[in-house]
């Protein structure tokens, strides 16, 4: 009898051990660890400075910049920058990886951590606004990163071929061990557009006073930029239009100091044109005193065009460095701003045959760039063709170093009338990049090929 009693007691012991320990192993080993669980933790992750950086090597690869000497080439700072400038087939010279690839994927990782963790948080009536905003921000940041990767590492969008052309690996979970594949260009853009569509429904602020954070018009502006690069002018028109309706402001260059080396202050840009804040990864070429704005841009400004003095700093040796950053310092602004929206809408109107509307937008912008002590010569166009030519010319003169040119080249090269062959001459050697050349697509870093087995971009 006693035996049975004791057996029962022992069984109870075992049972206790097995049952009552729920949560026993879930306690934090070190209380100092911040294991992001709360909405405020996730918001803090998205507030990280890294979320506001954009790529830069495609800027040096495009025709915004020009270097005249070997020492200026060296001053570009890194082998990747030099090779990007000269459109070398081998971009990396055994350098394992580069910021324009790493940084966006780091941003994507942060957003995926947030999106994965959000699934563990219950959305309630109380937390709904914060919950939705956090999710919307994450989707916006991730789409921005995907798009910017596509600009550098995938071909220009063409809806006929997008289904066959490789895009970029779409990393959608925070599991770093996940095996990735390279999605098609169509899948890439479909993901971006779908995510942005959701983001727009979730973000509450129409306009953001601290534009390091996304807003509803930032979503519209990004969509306008993306649709334009895809050649979907109807959608680009619709989104740039929404954007301008919410935030029509343009910065009047007449209020700026023409002699200053930093003529546009941070606050001036912020209070007028900036929709979403982003600056280029900190590459040395942007700060070099020998990296010049391309001669054909320098010579294209009218004497009364204020951009000539606001944007350009004459180094008195044939070099004109760019000083018109919306960042207020030497860092290059690659974010979204209203001037770009006017240019997008103007182009889309023109392509739609609405020359009057197109010219109205172009003049709205140009009026703010024109010396107001001299009467402004209204820009006019007799037909669509002329309108388009004029708009594209101003687009190039306005959006120097804004990170739009590489996508523009890929898009416009698909139209024979606007296709250009880019040329560089250095030390008597001529380098050329014909339209639609394979070198318009940067190769993936070798580690990606080795570890993930992605197909490499032919170059």
């Amino acid at each position, binding site marked *: 009898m006693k035996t049975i009693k004791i057996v029962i007691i022992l069984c109870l012991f075992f049972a206790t051990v097995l049952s009552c320990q729920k949560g026993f192993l879930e306690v934090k080993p070190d209380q100092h660890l911040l294991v992001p669980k709360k909405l405020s933790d996730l918001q803090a992750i998205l507030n990280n400075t890294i979320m506001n950086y954009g790529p830069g090597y495609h800027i040096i690869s495009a025709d915004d910049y020009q270097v005249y000497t070997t020492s200026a080439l060296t001053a570009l700072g890194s082998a990747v920058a030099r090779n990007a400038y000269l459109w070398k087939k081998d971009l990396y010279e055994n350098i394992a990886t580069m910021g324009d690839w790493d940084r966006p994927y780091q941003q994507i990782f942060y957003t995926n951590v947030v999106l994965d963790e959000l699934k563990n948080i219950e959305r309630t009536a109380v937390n709904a606004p914060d919950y939705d905003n956090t999710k919307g921000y994450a989707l916006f940041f991730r789409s921005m990163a995907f798009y910017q990767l596509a600009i550098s590492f995938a071909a220009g969008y063409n809806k006929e071929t997008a289904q066959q052309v490789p895009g970029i690996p779409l990393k959608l979970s925070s599991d770093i061990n996940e095996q990735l594949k390279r999605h098609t260009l169509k899948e890439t853009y479909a993901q971006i557009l779908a995510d942005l569509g959701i983001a727009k429904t979730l973000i509450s602020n129409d306009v953001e006073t601290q534009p390091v954070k996304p807003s509803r018009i930032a979503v519209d502006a990004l969509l306008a930029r993306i649709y334009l690069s895809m050649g979907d002018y109807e959608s680009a028109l619709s989104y740039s239009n929404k954007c301008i309706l919410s935030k029509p402001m343009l910065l009047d260059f007449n209020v700026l100091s023409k002699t200053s080396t930093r003529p546009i202050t941070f606050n001036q840009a912020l209070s007028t044109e900036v929709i979403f804040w982003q600056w280029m990864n900190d590459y040395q070429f942007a700060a070099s005193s020998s990296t010049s704005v391309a001669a054909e841009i320098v010579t294209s400004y009218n004497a009364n065009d204020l951009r000539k003095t606001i944007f350009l700093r004459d180094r008195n040796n044939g070099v004109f460095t760019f000083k018109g950053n919306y960042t207020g310092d030497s860092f290059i602004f690659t974010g979204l701003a209203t001037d770009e929206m006017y240019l997008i809408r103007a182009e889309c109107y023109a392509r739609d045959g609405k020359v009057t509307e197109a010219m109205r937008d172009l003049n709205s912008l140009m009026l703010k760039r024109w010396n107001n002590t001299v009467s402004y010569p209204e820009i006019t166009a007799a037909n669509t063709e002329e309108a388009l030519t004029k708009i594209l010319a101003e687009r190039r003169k306005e959006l120097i170093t804004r990170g739009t040119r590489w996508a523009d080249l890929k898009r416009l090269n698909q139209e024979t009338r606007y296709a250009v062959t880019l040329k560089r001459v250095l030390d008597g050697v001529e380098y050329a990049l014909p339209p639609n050349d394979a070198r318009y697509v940067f190769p993936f870093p070798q580690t*990606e090929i080795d570890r993930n087995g992605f197909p490499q971009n032919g170059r």
Partner: protein
Amino acid sequence: MKKYILMFLAGCMAFAQTWAQQTISGKITASDTQHPIPGASVRVKGTNRGTKTDNMGAFAISVGHADTLAVSFVGYNTQFFAPPFSAVLNITMQLSDAKLEEVVVSTGYQTLPKERVVGSFTVVDQQLLNRSVSTNLLDRLRDVVPGFSFNNVGSSSMSIRGQSTIYGNAEPLIVLDNFPFEGSMQDINPNDVESITILRDAAAASIWGARAGNGVIVITTKKGKLNQALQVSLNSNFTMVDVPDLYAGNKLSASDYIDIEKKLFSQGYYDASQATGYEALTPVVEMLYKKKADPSLATEVDAEMERLKGLDVRRDFSRYIYRKGINQQQALNLKGGGGKNSYYLSLGYDHNRGDMVGNELSRVSVAGNNTFKFLKDRLELATAGNFSVHTTVNNAVGTNLSNASAGGVIYPYAQLADEQGNHLPIIKNYRSSFISQASSNGLLDWSYVPLDEPDLVDMSTKRRTARLSGSLAYHLWKGLKASVRYQFINMETTGRNERSLESYYSRDLINRFTQVSGTTLVRPVPLGGILDFSQQSMTDHGFRTQLDFNRNWKEKHELTAMAGIEIRSTRTESANHRYYGYDSEYAQNTFVDYTNNALPFYYDSSRKGQIPFADALGLYNDRFRSYYANISYGFLSRYIFNASARLDQSNLFGVKTNQKGVPLWSMGIAWNVDKENFYFLKSVLPYLKVRTTYGYNGNVDKTVSAYTTAAFAGNRYNMPYATIINPPNPNLKWERVAIWNVGLDFGFKGNRISGSAEYYHKKGMDLIGDMPMPASSGVLQYRGNIASTTGSGIELAIRTQNLQGKLKWQSDFVFANQKENITDYFVTATSSQYLQSGLYLPLKGKPLYSLYSYSWAGLDPDTGDPQGYLNGVASKDYTAIIREYTPEKLIFNGSIRPTTFGSLRNTISYGDISFSFNIAYRLGYVFRKNALVYGANLGLLSNNGDYAVRWQNPGDEVHTQVPSVPAAANNNRDMFYRYSDVLVDKADNIRLQDIRFDYMLSDRNWLPFQQVQFYVYSANLGILWKRTRFDVDPDIQYGNYPVSIAFGIKVNFK
């Protein structure tokens, strides 16, 4: 009356059985100890008549003429005596050949006789543990266990069979009385320990699962035994520890130091410091400025400097800072037991006077345990309680006393006291003229008198530990036992660093922030002492429930099995707080303003600072849940098969890994060859056993987490932002070590030669290491289960009985050789990191602890510049030479941990006297001699005595390899010399580790005790042989291991 009746009855019986009965008496002694054996059995063969010897080993028995007497005692050969008998029969018992097998090993879950063992165990018994005298128990394992080493370098203080992890915890698991011990080893009184078992291979350790990867040290404390008379034993000893050899460090002489200071002075080296008006300048530099200002003082100053050249601060160190350490240890213990219960009680007191004035340590420990049997011995209850208070006081000032011009290195001509012994100030942080000017402004005296300091501070730590445990075991059915066991540990540590107002630290901090406006002084750091108070509280619960099964069938089959569940939880909470303006008399303190980060410093108002904030809180939780099972089957005692498995879960890894649950397991077989019928060497080699095991042990790296972890990094536009530190890693798992072990145990006739040999091969898998990741994953580098290592080794433990009889001589030889390599690692650091990393950096294909160097091409005979090779030609282009060396091209000199090590211990005894000495050897490793680095100060900061033998004139290169003073500071030149192979040498050495002398008196009639033992033990007796050409101790270049000598007495009462 009774007596007569008994005599009558006995007489009748005797008459009835035989014609003549005889009473014989005698005494039984052991041949090995020469001591009487109490409790030996003396019986008439074939009957149940018999008796046992008393405490003096005496017996009396009546025997008939046809009887045969059998005398037996566990561990000794049974002897038979046939008639005729003499009236007095004194018997000396010989050790049985089986004695070796009788050793019991403990895994912390079960104890088993050695013959049932398949794995690699080493048992250190009480006798060997008590051979050395130390405050800390684990010190007694030094140089007695094959494959066990204390490390001079690396991430663990000790190792069993090398290191099988990279970033994980590399310390062996310590198990104390069946539970992993989370307390401090310093709290264990060595006199309470019965034995230590070292578990080395998979079969031995895998029962400890995820924490056994570095081997396991199982400590079993003393317990009473059933049916044992009360035994009282007292052990008392005191140890004197010598002052360390301060001259072993090869420092600059005062003369060289002053010469360098003069040269630097002429180059204007001190002008910037001098211009500040407050920065500390050494007395020589002050004099040089005095002489410069007033050349008429030249003779006086020069004479004074000559006087200083004759001084040596090390003389003052040895007189005033150091002293002989004196360690006392007293231990009293009682044990015994009746038929139903046994008990043990002990008291211990240790007091160590440190070898520096102001340092001491004390420990008071109380331990007790009880075992009770109930219900016809079917239920066993055991309880134990251990309490200790451990106090350390660290008031000593140390020897890094000055910041004057030489980065914490004191100028060698400093004087700490005058001829009369009066304490003197030395130059520390400020110039003497600045100090007197500050005093005149009303600031506190800013001078630093090192020898006053120990009395002005109270830097102590007190740790109170309570360890309580209880277990309940019930024999359910034939051989089936169920048990539960619980242990609770509470460790409360309070640290108190109190610096009184008079202490330099407080005066300095108060003065530094003092602001003078006119005649009023503002003191942001208030007048008063500064108290740093820290508290740490650790609570550990261990709970285990286990089923044991143990049965024999027909003497043929023997099955032992167990299974159980264990839960452990350790919670550590800590708090540190600083109190300013502390007044110890009234225990009062004052608040300060921590928020102002722009408080001007008194000595330079352009420099600003913040009052140091030293408060911190911490909370840590370790939780484990484990399931384990072990089964052992023996057939005819010849073949033994063993298997064990364990599944661990922990809060470190999160739910996903826990759910997956990879069990760690092992299997092993042993073959007792000597038990075979066909075994034909029985007469020569009566004991022979072969065994082999294979399996996995695990290891933990607490620095990684399965969760995403982040940290707040600051504010941006008034929004807090966080940075992700650790990516989520749901695949994180235990590190695993696969070990294959083969062992051979043997004993020749009479145990003249006995011992064991082991070979093992191990493979560290899933080790935590760094790996570059494709950026698309989101991270560039990732710490996860990616690295692997291999290792193999041989271990020998051989005992020979060289002489037996009255004069005995026994030798114990311990040998271990081990090889280790990193086989998979994915991040290669830079060459200079491999050279400079004082500790370890993994490089694929090399041991974790490796030494690398540049190739040396000798000194330039014209300039004394060091030379290396560039494209095979001697060169002085240091920049190019250094650039040429990729990690693959660096010279790999070898391991910096010994690869072969062990000891030879000889014990010689004659009667009551015994003498033993242990010689330890460490071979197959290298070291780098400390270099003279000139830097920008002609070698002043380097403070290396090699300066005296540097290259000075052409021809010197024949007898020196120390470069000349460079014309201008050249970091690459210094770097090249410092890491060139001219400074690397073999570290192999042999030491006389210790000697011990014993005199034991027992069972003398005049003695009021059962046994008295006097002993003398001396350790660290010096190097007998070393391989290196350098005049340094390769294991401790900046000093030596001071000799210690202990005197002790141990008494066992009747």
